[in-house]
């Protein structure tokens, strides 16, 4: 029985030691006012539990020790005492009311997303995040960048194993940023512990949350709601930067987006498309259809040697652009731009033994989308 006391001591030590660390034993204090409020609530209710635990378990172990049958203890026969019972009902109620007041205040603050200076749309997709800076014409997807070889153990695992992405969400510090959150397929949950933001993204509905980051830095989290096979491989990385740096970054992204848009109209070489297509395929498609296009039937059909796909380029384009209703294949018309769509279709039709020689031009895709 004594071992339980060691647990308690361990908790207490762990709790007091790890206040400053974010990835130790305890909840991180985080880098927003809300996150430190939540941390405060967490520690308060934790210590209340510790005190109640010490009193209740103390009384229990005292009784167990003091009134042992083997030491000849004689049992008393009382079996009720109304005023004591009323007392130990009333005290917890008072404690709970005391806890409810600050919790209510924090919650109201968390729900107040008014007066935001920047809106970011976060869309969950199996199994990546898409970020769109509303009104800025900047949007991109963010995929896990940990190589599969690290997961299978063929390569040494890096410091940020499973918590690293190709394109982090970049946010300015000291500015209230509102998140509008939704999903294209199943329910995901966008979570960054240091920001104390965890919100389900639900297909067909838009949730709101907000953040105002106090310190620049890189903050990592991951999807918190089971969303299918690669639920564990859907990290979130937020790069919080000074406001000027953010403005510069945003301007660069805008310019790059314009460049890309111009690329739609020119004629692309097959080699260019294949190169671009392979990177798109590995980032977006391979999580379901697998690295070699072998798929995982019946949920995810094979693309290599898929006769229907190879015989009908229009059918192929339709499925990629518009998705397959009632199945896991999403519509990529808004997720990928025409260049990426054309590249990935061209790549799929010319990889892993698929030798159609078909080249799909971005301009054709742009036309299809416009229809």
């Amino acid at each position, binding site marked *: *029985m004594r*071992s339980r006391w060691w*647990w308690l001591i361990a908790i207490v030590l762990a709790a007091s030691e790890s206040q400053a660390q974010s*990835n130790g*034993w*305890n*909840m991180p204090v985080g880098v927003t006012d809300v996150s430190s409020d*939540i941390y405060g*609530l*967490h520690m308060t*209710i*934790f210590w209340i539990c510790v005190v109640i635990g010490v009193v*209740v*378990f103390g009384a*229990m172990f005292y009784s*167990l020790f003091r*009134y*042992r*049958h083997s030491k000849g*203890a004689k049992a008393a*026969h*009382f*079996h*009720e005492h109304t005023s004591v*019972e009323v007392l*130990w*009902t009333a005290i*917890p109620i008072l404690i*709970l009311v005391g806890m409810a007041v600050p*919790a209510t205040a924090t*919650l*109201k603050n*968390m*729900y107040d997303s008014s007066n935001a200076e920047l809106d970011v749309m976060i869309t969950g997709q199996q199994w990546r995040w898409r970020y769109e800076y509303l009104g800025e014409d900047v949007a991109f997807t963010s995929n896990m960048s940990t190589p599969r070889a*690290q997961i*299978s153990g063929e390569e040494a695992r890096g410091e940020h194993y*499973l918590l690293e992405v190709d394109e982090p969400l970049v946010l300015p510090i000291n500015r209230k940023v509102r998140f509008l959150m939704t999903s294209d*397929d*199943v329910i995901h*949950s966008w*979570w960054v*512990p240091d920001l*104390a933001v*965890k*919100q389900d993204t*639900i*297909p*067909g*509905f838009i949730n709101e949350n907000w953040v105002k980051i106090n310190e620049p830095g890189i903050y990592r*989290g*991951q999807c*918190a709601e*089971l969303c*299918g096979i*690669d*639920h*564990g*491989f859907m990290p979130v990385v937020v790069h919080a930067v000074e406001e000027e740096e953010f403005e510069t970054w945003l301007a660069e992204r805008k310019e790059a987006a314009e460049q890309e848009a111009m690329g739609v109209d020119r004629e692309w070489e097959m080699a260019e498309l294949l190169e671009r297509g392979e990177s798109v395929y590995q980032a977006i498609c391979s999580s379901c259809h697998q690295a070699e296009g072998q798929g995982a039937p*019946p949920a995810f059909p094979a693309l290599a040697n898929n006769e229907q796909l190879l015989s009908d380029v229009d059918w192929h384009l339709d499925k990629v652009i518009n998705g397959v209703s*009632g199945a896991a294949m999403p519509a990529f018309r808004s997720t990928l731009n025409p260049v990426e769509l054309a590249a990935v279709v061209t790549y799929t039709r010319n990889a892993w033994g698929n030798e159609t020689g078909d080249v799909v031009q971005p301009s054709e895709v742009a036309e299809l989308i416009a229809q």
Partner: protein
Amino acid sequence: MAPKLPPQPPLQHSSTAVADGQSHGHAAPPKGILRWLLTTNHKEIGSLYLIFSLTMFFIGGIFALVVRAELFQPGLQLVEPEFFNQMTTMHGLIMVFAAVMPAFTGLANWMIPLQIGAPDMALPRLNNFSFWLLPVAFTLLLSTLFMPGGGPNFGWTFYAPLSTTYAPPSTTFFILALHIAGISSILGAINIIATILNMRAPGMRLMDMPLFVWTWLITAFLLIAVMPVLAGVITMMLMDINFGTSFFDAAGGGDPVLFQHLFWFFGHPEVYIMILPAFGIVSAIIPTFARKPLFGYASMVYATAAIALLSFLVWAHHMFIVGLPLVAELFFMYSTMLIAVPTGVKVFNWVTTLFRGSISFESPMLFSLAFVVLFTIGGFSGLMLAIAPADFQYHDTYFVVAHFHYVLVPGAIFAIMAGVYYWLPKWTGHYPNERLAQWHFWFSIIGVNLTFFPMHFAGLAGMPRRIPDYALQFADFNLLSSIGAFFFGASQLLFVLGVILCIRGGKKAPAKAWEGAVDLEWTVPSPAPLHTFETPPVFHRTSH
């Protein structure tokens, strides 16, 4: 209210003693497998339930060990994520619906008639039917693992649309299996209510019933109230999958969040269905081994009823981060916090029962004491989870996993084991081997804490649930949990050994096997003959 006498069964054998009840009036039971297929005897059906539950406990446990083996260290070593998800899902489904619930029903079958002085359950044939539905349901459920596309892989909470539009083809079988299990539960609950309300010994009023009977009465009402909700929600899934409806599909005008409301309106009372009978068992054992009446019997009954009532008002605390309106968040936060009050009353009552008792530490008592301490720790983390703003950090992490495993493993399952050790002398006529039981206890308590305590830290540090692989900073916690899980799993073999040895022999137990025991089951011989209380006993009121 005048003391109401329950209707008495026709007194055909009014002069016979309980012990030789087998000999008259009953046709000789069929032999072999038919005997078990056709039995309508509450003791035999109780045994069937318990054996089924134990088998499923090990199957579900093996699934958990697959999960823990994969999580032993970072990286994917043993199983693919797809199979990992099937394992987490099946572990949850099997443990909830096939291990814990049938174990309590089995104990109810055995003990409720004995504790209220009834000759059998009120509806014996229905009783047979509700048991035999279970092997059908769970054979069907387990068979999905071998179907193309694999078994259910969307978690035991099967949130739509992952469980509808994006589900494997076997989901329809999963729905059917759950329907069958649900029918079994409802029929069992009806039977228990009918038995308790109609077949109590003359002179036994409701407020004279042992707490195990009381908690089961309330549990049975909960079951009848919420199993149809589960049936409704899985039928809606069935329609969405097979008949083109869009209850949960936003593209067709449906609402994925509606699924969660319906599921948790079933799911939260379900949590209490799995713990209230445990309260009843512990409330029988602690007074027995403290040799002192239970403190606050009336309060215990009232607190159980209050918990059952509140359980219908708190479901959305499982949904604090789905984007509920602020008012709803506050309502569910307040109502959830209030549950701590009657739960606290129970813990205080148990502790006060110990105070100034005369306490001995046989194995049923050890498991019950561990229940009180570890269930309370699970209650503490529950209280923390009730704080809605903090839940934004806790939700869907290993902190939640730690919380509900503390209330279910050293909570519900320890209580079941306590009950088994407590009543084995009555069932078999032999005491369980006490030394073996003590080893089982200490191994279990080390294993359970080693498995689940580090999960609190992993969750607080940021590890989400249901992931097959994890970042490096969670490695130490997972290593400990996995070692603990295998240790705990292996030590349950001692339990099986203890039960088998006890059935085969051991120290003979008298009718009243424990010095401090008071309830009616201790007035019949040990082992309890196949038919007991054919003549209703006269109930003498002890001071509760």
